[in-house]
């Protein structure tokens, strides 16, 4: 029951993130929305894991472990995207200064 509830929660989170990804023009907001979707997808893993509780475990450890891997990958993605964005902002500003001056 809990698993189903959080499964619904995950479904709505994915939708919310997708909406943000489409409507926000700023890249940082897109990165944020991507992380929101990620949270939803990982939560779905959690719901699936909870449904698979057996053998004395509160949840299926396989999807739980996959989430940990996924979270680390998502962090790396965010860090790379943020670094690209900051560098792009800097480069664009320099290019703007040069064309102004």
């Amino acid at each position, binding site marked *: 029951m*809990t698993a189903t*509830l*959080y*499964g*619904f*929660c*995950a*479904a*709505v*989170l*994915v939708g*919310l993130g*997708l*909406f*943000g990804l*489409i409507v*926000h023009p*700023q890249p*940082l907001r897109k*990165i*944020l*929305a991507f*992380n*929101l979707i990620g*949270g939803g997808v990982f*939560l*779905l893993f*959690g*719901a*699936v894991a*909870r449904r*698979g*509780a*057996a053998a004395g*475990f509160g*949840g*299926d*450890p*396989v999807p*739980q*472990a996959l*989430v*940990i*891997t996924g*979270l*680390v*990958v*998502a*962090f*790396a993605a*965010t*860090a*790379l995207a*943020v*670094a690209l964005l900051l*560098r792009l*902002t800097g480069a*664009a*500003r320099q290019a*703007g200064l040069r064309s102004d001056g």
Partner: protein
Amino acid sequence: MSFDIGLTLLVLAVAAWTIAARETFVAVVGFVAYGLLLAFVWVRLAAPDVALTEAALGSGLTGGLLIGASSRLRRSQSPAAEEAPGVVLKAAAAVLSILVSAGLAAIVLLLPDPAPTLAPQAAASIAATGLGNPVTAVLMAYRAIDTLLEIVVLLLALVGIWSLAPDRDWGRRLDRRGSTDPVSVLTFVAQLLVPVGIIVGIHIFWVGSVAPGGEFQGATILATMWTLASMAGLVSAAAVTRRWLRLVLTIGPAVFLAIGLAGFALAGAFLAYPKSHAKLMILVIEIPVTLSIAATLALLVAGPPERARQ
């Protein structure tokens, strides 16, 4: 159950706020709260290992990274206004999102009952790994190849970030902006907190073989402590060209690979551990891996080597 319903509503409200907020900075703060709430959800889903990772990495380190980015972007905001999305686009996006959510929710209801699970198999094989925490067994034994490749993913992200450095700044130290804060409170608290945090990080890593925790969670805490210390001006990163830094970064995956290859000879397969020494070999992998992950995460947050701009 009512607690779970309340928590769900709260998570959704914060998520919606994050999307709806006008200011990016506000949205980022909302995201940090969202991550912390998700950590609670993970506890409710009987996944304490994930809860720790979510709190430390998904909310903490990611949040710190995004807060830093949003404040830097705010300072350098270009006057040209971003084009706002039209009503049609918004409506279409809303319809699409609602359809996706509804579809996913329907599928959640359609999942088979009883659910298929690998928990019994994971439990049956755990003795061969010498571990007590099934999640660690999945990460370090059953699916060790995923973990190995994932560490390489982290390193590649770092190479990617470094490759963004201006050529003239290659070989410089990674200066953090505003590091020497005149307010000494930060320095004071860093001196107090960092040793505690390091102990907590090592503890969380160490108990990972039998209890919730592990190398990723521990490494994240260590990385956070390094970031805090560098914000307070207590430490500063070495130049990216330093040989010892490169060794720290690569020693973890290198040992992982080496022991994996040794598995060919010792246990008949890549990344297989001989039964009698499985736990020891996993530990031998985990210690350098934790070190490498911590260093990589900290440097990912620090960004490319760049001259500090005034």
